[in-house]
């Protein structure tokens, strides 16, 4: 990496990026512990190793851009502005969770920040992103819709249909492919006949390129560029972020399908460590400042766990709530909150 002048990022921006990556990491390390302690249940998919992607992309968005993500979405949710306590409470299944406890780890939602999940049908949320983009275009806003998905999702028919629609209709959607090389235990090479994913996406006649997803500045720069293109009316953009998950697919996964050496190689490129080291090496930050970010993040998560755990379990009597809107509910009630 080079100096600030070359990167185009200000020191404060860099610190914010580092801080946010650390916040995600600390939140998720704690999730793993809490899973072991049975406080979190169901499927839990950690983003550890991939933090630069969400962090860089989210840094380039406007507050009211819509975001959709997968089941591996804790980091995205956090940076979209959902308090760590609400996220943690959701994973505890408590009423103070961001989905009222109904969704759990895979289904974080927040209407106030326009975070549209936490979607756990692989590929299923890509058409939703197209629709949100269509709504923006029809209503005439200058917001964009950002959709995160794994490289595995690109084999699904819904990817194909969604990209085609977005391109045909020139919608303001940013497709962010988090290529961590595996879909559960299936490697990219056995999942896609064309492993150059940007090339593949370009076949829909949209701008598409690939970026080092372990380098948060590269990610942020790509996202800025993409957002500018989209907001300027250039239609959808696809960006591939090459990254890696340091943990197993989920807490159920014995991770038998990856070579330890491969994991090690990628861990050398830990997006947080490399970025922190660079900041320190270049004397843009001191080791103490970095430590402080970790400490603050830990405090945030400590508080979050405490607040989450203070939350109540929903009484079983209201089990049938939220299936359809209550009588008398009008669509307007929901719109108010968006």
């Amino acid at each position, binding site marked *: 990496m080079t100096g600030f002048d070359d990167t185009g990022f200000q020191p404060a921006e860099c610190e914010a990026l580092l801080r946010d990556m650390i916040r995600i990491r600390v939140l998720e390390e704690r999730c793993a512990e809490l899973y072991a302690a049975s406080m979190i249940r169901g499927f839990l998919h950690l983003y550890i190793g991939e933090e630069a992607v969400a962090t860089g992309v989210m840094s380039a968005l406007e507050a009211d851009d819509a975001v959709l993500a997968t089941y591996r979405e804790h980091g995205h949710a956090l940076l979209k502005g959902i308090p760590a306590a609400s996220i943690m409470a959701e994973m505890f299944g408590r009423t103070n969770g961001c989905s009222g406890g109904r969704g759990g780890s895979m289904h974080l939602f927040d209407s106030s920040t326009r975070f549209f999940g936490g979607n756990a049908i692989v590929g*299923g949320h890509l058409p939703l992103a197209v629709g949100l983009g269509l*709504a923006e275009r*029809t209503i005439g806003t200058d917001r964009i819709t950002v959709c995160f998905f794994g490289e595995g999702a690109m084999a699904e028919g819904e990817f194909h*249909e*969604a990209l*085609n629609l977005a391109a045909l209709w020139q919608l303001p959607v940013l497709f962010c492919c988090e290529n961590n090389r595996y879909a559960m235990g299936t490697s990219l090479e056995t999942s896609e006949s064309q492993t150059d994913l940007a090339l593949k996406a370009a076949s829909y006649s949209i701008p598409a390129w690939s970026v080092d997803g372990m380098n948060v500045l590269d990610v942020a720069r790509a996202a800025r560029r993409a957002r500018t293109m989209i907001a300027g009316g250039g239609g959808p953009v696809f960006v591939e972020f090459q990254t890696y998950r340091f943990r197993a697919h989920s807490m159920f996964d014995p991770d038998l399908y990856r070579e330890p050496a491969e994991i090690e190689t990628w861990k050398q490129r830990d997006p947080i460590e490399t970025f922190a080291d660079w900041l320190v090496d270049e004397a843009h930050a001191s080791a103490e400042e970095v430590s402080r970010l970790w400490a603050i993040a830990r405090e945030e998560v400590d508080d979050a766990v405490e607040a989450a755990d203070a939350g109540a379990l929903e009484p079983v009597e209201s089990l049938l709530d939220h299936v359809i809107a209550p009588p008398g509910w009008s*669509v307007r009630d*929901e719109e108010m909150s968006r």
Partner: protein
Amino acid sequence: MSVETEPVAEAVVTTTYRDAMHDAIRAALHDDDRVIVLGEDVADYGGTYAVTKGLYEEFGRDRVRNTPLSESGFVGAAIGAALGGLRPIVEIMTVNFSLLALDQIVNTAATFRHMSGGQFGVPLVVRMTTGAGRQLAAQHSHSLEGWYAHVPGLKVVAPATVHDARWMLSTALADPDPVIIFEHNALYGLQGPADPPGAPPGPVDLERAVVRRPGDDLTIVAWAGMVPKALEAADALAAAGISADLIDLRSLRPIDTGTLTASVGRTNRALVVDEGWLTVGLSAEIAALTTEHCFWSLDAPVRRLATAEVPIPYPRHLEQHAIPQVEDIVTAARRLVEDGH
């Protein structure tokens, strides 16, 4: 077939089910900027069954939007558009093709409100054609309404009169949750008043069954394409001295248990006529539900008349033999009343 689905006085203007549906969509596009129509061939072609004909010329391609062949994609896009503040009316050509979009409808549209703890509703209307009778064979002729009626989070309706074709849509559009509208392909030519006497023009409720023909000897429950057939059968039965209380279910989810049980509690006999397959079909639900509520007053088990368990065959005589016909309804009703089974 001479069927009148509502009492028609001399002066009442009649139209077709197709035109009523068309008028409903046109009015919705006119009244609310957020309404858009999308689906395969809804624009230039005018809709497979010509329901949306002329609308793209009037409202433009942005509001009446042709989609490529990609059922999952464009239904999902409609869900997203609903989340984003529009009120999409999405058309799926035939219920068979809706299987391609079922993931979106069941795993997303029907769950979004719940998964988000009530934060995100999906105010979407999905229209699709259903039913057999046109010799379209095994990949175009099915009746899978019962599947949709199984899914919490959805509302499912089946207009069987011109009046309902005209007015159910606006209620559906006002609904904060996804509503699936099943249009039986054989009904498009049905004649009747969009605004029958006594029914002021305007939205109709989506959740109540309606007695289309009152009677005392047995209850016949039908919906969609089976309603005109059941009406014709009821006429024939009346001629034979049997008076049938004919219920048009209208809403397939939720099911209007009150209307069903009020009728069967009085007639003590019920016949359900279902164009879907028998096993685990909607007719099973009607039978089970009615029996739960009326067991002690039933004079005979609820009788189900449904389509034969075969993918719909092409030849007319086999197709007709597979699906319930007027004579089948008459025969089943007579046996129920006269022989008790």
